[in-house]
């Protein structure tokens, strides 16, 4: 019995070494939050709702049209929301004749993205410029990215037998290599969508809210939400952000919260090994006691 226990412990330590080595390699890739990424600044007060960005996005990223409910023949591309064929959309919020606003919806490119944190096979990744992109060759379609995303951005092609996740990647593979900026920012006639480094976009957004306090809500959405996003929003003073589908979210990144707890529980895989060793020790001890008790009883 004793030799078995010892062997068990030795095995544990051997395993611990390997796992620790693997674990280190895994955690090394998890870098500090990058605040020098690229992103978009969307100014709802400048947007005229022409949807040129929606069409340009579909063209640049080779996405098929989506039928509208009013148009059974499918003459128009009329998606009602982000979906398996739509990475970018412009919506209208209308409260009254005078209080209304357009809003452009696409991936927020969080600085600490939840979708990247939950993906088991690294199909969602964040590049050095802070862009969050999708690698369909790795994706297994578990849809945890959709569960985790606080903005409900990643969408799934439910109707296809061989589906994929659809989500804005700031034209990382399409328009940016060709023309230097994403399709939506390139086509916008009123510069409501601008592309650039987050720091510069944030400075520009603050300049606008400070010089035009009557026009803008004095808040840049995305500066602090969920740890900060690379896509920033300005809205008109009359319309709160949550009416535009931009929810009130805490400043802590959900991914930072969950990773902190998980790593606290697992302690680089040492905790499960300690658990195994403890259970093994107790179980063999109990079994030994049992067989001894049995022998005594037999003697009697």
């Amino acid at each position: 019995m004793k030799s078995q226990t010892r062997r068990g412990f030795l095995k544990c330590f051997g395993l611990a070494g390997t796992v620790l080595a693997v674990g280190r390699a895994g955690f090394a890739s998890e870098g500090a939050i990058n605040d020098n990424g690229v992103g978009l600044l969307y100014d709802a007060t400048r947007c005229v709702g022409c949807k040129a960005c929606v069409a340009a996005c579909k063209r640049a990223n080779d996405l098929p049209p989506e039928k509208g409910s009013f148009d059974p023949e499918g003459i128009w591309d009329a998606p009602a929301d982000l979906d398996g064929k739509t990475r970018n959309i412009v919506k209208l919020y209308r409260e009254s004749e005078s209080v209304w606003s357009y809003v452009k919806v696409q991936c927020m490119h969080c600085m600490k993205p939840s979708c990247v944190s939950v993906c088991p096979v690294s199909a969602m990744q964040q590049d050095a410029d802070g862009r969050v992109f999708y690698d369909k060759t790795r994706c297994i379609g578990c849809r945890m990215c959709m569960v985790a995303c606080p903005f409900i951005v990643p969408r799934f092609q439910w109707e296809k037998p061989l589906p994929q996740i659809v989500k804005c990647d700031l034209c990382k593979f399409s328009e940016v290599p060709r023309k230097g900026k994403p399709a939506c920012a390139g086509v916008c006639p009123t510069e409501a969508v601008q592309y650039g480094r987050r720091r510069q976009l944030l400075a520009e957004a603050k300049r606008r809210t400070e010089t035009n306090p009557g026009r803008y809500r004095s808040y840049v959405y995305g500066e602090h939400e969920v740890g900060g996003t690379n896509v920033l929003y300005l809205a008109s003073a009359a319309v709160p952000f949550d009416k535009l589908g931009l929810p009130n979210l805490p400043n802590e990144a959900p991914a930072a919260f969950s990773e902190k707890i998980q790593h606290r529980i697992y302690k680089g895989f040492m905790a499960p090994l300690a658990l195994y060793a403890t259970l093994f020790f107790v179980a063999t001890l109990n079994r030994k006691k049992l067989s001894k008790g049995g022998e005594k009883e037999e003697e009697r």
Partner: protein
Amino acid sequence: MTEQVQYKPLGGTIFTRGLFVLLFFTIIGFSLIAVRFWKGIGAVSNMTDVFPLGIWITYDVATGTALACGGYAIALLVYILNGWHYHSLMRSAILLSFFGYILAGFSVVTDLGRFWNVYNIFMPSRWQFNSALLEVALCIMTYCLVLFIEFLPVILEWIRGLGWGTVSKFADRFAPKLDRVLIYFIVLGMTLPTMHQSSLGSLFLIATSKVHPIWHTMHLPLFFLLNCLFLGYGVVVLESTLSSYIFDREYEVRVLAGLAGAGAWIAVVWLVLRIADLAWRGRLGMAFAGGDRYSLSFLVEFLLIGAGAYCLFKPKLHSARWLFISGMLLIVGGGLYRFNVYLIGFNWTHHWKYFPALPEFLITVGIVAFKFLAYFVLIKILPVLPAKHEPHLAGSPDWSSLMQSKIKSSSNWHLP
């Protein structure tokens, strides 16, 4: 007073009427799974971009594996808490766990959108160590293997009895070798569920703004772990009374009452911790208000578990019928907790609602039917259920005295 626990196949006809009913639902379910692979998930399910996980994950995986925790829960009781007199329940519990987990894995593959890419899970270069799902996936796959090894002695015993010449001789030689190393796997079989059952709760830690505040807490992993334990005990009670009823065997009331008592204690601890957690987060009022569907769902979950635990603490109610009822209460309440986290309390700020489509539901029914079908066939062929029964006791003792009276009557059991 030494006796060896003997296991015996139940025998009898395999093709009963019940089997054909189960077969019917199995065939429907599996045909619909074929449709799912041919035409896509959208063709058979009501899942949407807002509810990307439906009942396949919520029931078959998150709840199904918890219901398959009987093997885990009993192993803890036997090997860690020294409850050796529960050992006679191990084989059937492991068989149930094995099917529960294998079919949960099968449901996952049905649910995976890009199932042909699933090999990526086996490529360490692509592992992403922040992902709770990666941990769940690897852990569940390993556990299926461990459960198979834990069940292997039963298969070997069966082969030895068949008298197949060389094959039986090989089983004869192999069985003692397996016996010597089995303890390593049994302990692994207690470690792995501790990990992945808590991780099933960790999956939703990240959905801070999406899971309703009644359920979203940093203690999700702990609650899921304790929850799977009392579900595990409940299921063994249910399974044992049910198979005694169906196959007209004597009820193991005494052993089961003790087991159910363990479940009841954990359920009570769990309820107290949940209240403490709600109070700590300042959500008690929200939970007990009873005004909206979330609060109602919480209250139902709470009352079911509370009622189940209450019945189990009453020694008067330790009859086969009441054990079955209270086990059922624990299971339905504990299962509802998992539904509340995964589905009912999910994306609560949106108007979209999810209810499973009929084909989606029938796929889950088919998988469950197959689980029962395989179980009932195998206990007739393989030596899974104990041959000898403890006498039916009129007034059963309470759990604590049962725990202390331990192993006097049967100390020479053949144990791995």
